[in-house]
């Protein structure tokens, strides 16, 4: 692990795998930013979110370990299936892991929860 890099190679691979799995499950784009938020965390998170390729279909998770801040920004399209209260549940799960200094596990759990809630509800096809 390089100095200043919060993740080892294995941890980065685990996070990449978690993101891929979440994207397959929810059909939304996931992006995770871990670092220093410049200015107000929420404002910085929305700047990150707006810089993504498809913000409306994206979920951005921003974690500032120094400021102990978590921000999740969901695009307009994603909000149709992922409500803000469901995002709060994922944030609580991440907070619990981060408080135990487990950054990677917290992110994985948070991403998995967000993906689980963001996936479209299965429609039941009633024949006639």
């Amino acid at each position, binding site marked *: 692990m390089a100095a200043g890099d919060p993740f080892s190679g294995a941890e980065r691979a685990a996070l990449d795998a978690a993101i891929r799995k979440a994207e397959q499950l929810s059909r939304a784009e996931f992006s995770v930013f871990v670092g220093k938020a410049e200015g107000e965390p929420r404002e910085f998170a929305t700047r990150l979110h707006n810089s993504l390729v498809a913000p409306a279909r994206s979920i951005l998770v921003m974690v500032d370990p120094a400021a102990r801040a*978590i921000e999740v920004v969901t695009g307009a399209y994603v909000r149709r299936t992922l409500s803000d209260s469901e995002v709060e549940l994922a944030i609580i799960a991440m907070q619990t892991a981060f408080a135990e200094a487990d950054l990677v596990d917290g992110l994985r759990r948070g991403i998995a929860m967000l993906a689980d809630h963001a996936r479209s509800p299965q429609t039941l096809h009633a024949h006639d």
Partner: protein
Amino acid sequence: MKWVGRNRSEPGNTDILPDVTTTLTSLRRLLIVVVSCLWLGVASLVLAAPASADVPEYWPEAGEIDKLEAILLLGGVPLLLMVVISFLVYAPSIIRGERIAPGHAGTENQWLGGPRKSAGELAAPDTEDSQAGGASGRW
């Protein structure tokens, strides 16, 4: 009350002899230790006498030592070694582009699944009429 054995308080009692013997033995041991220490001290002085002998005549004459040369040798060589060791320690980090200044070992920004943009190139933040949602938290 009946004493078992002889009464120590009786005049002319000879049971005081063992105490006197013990005291004498202790004194003798102390004397032996003191004499031994003295002997060792004298012997070490006598044996160390050759160490203070003059420089042998067949040794070469030591020349005058140049002060500048001495300063360079005693100060310059350790300084040079310090520079070389510091270079060897910091060079790999410098080559990798890592920050080496103390107090700057903060977390590097990591953006998984995001575009390669610096903070200055980011888009504008959301406005009041933004459709985006989400939540915030602290721990």
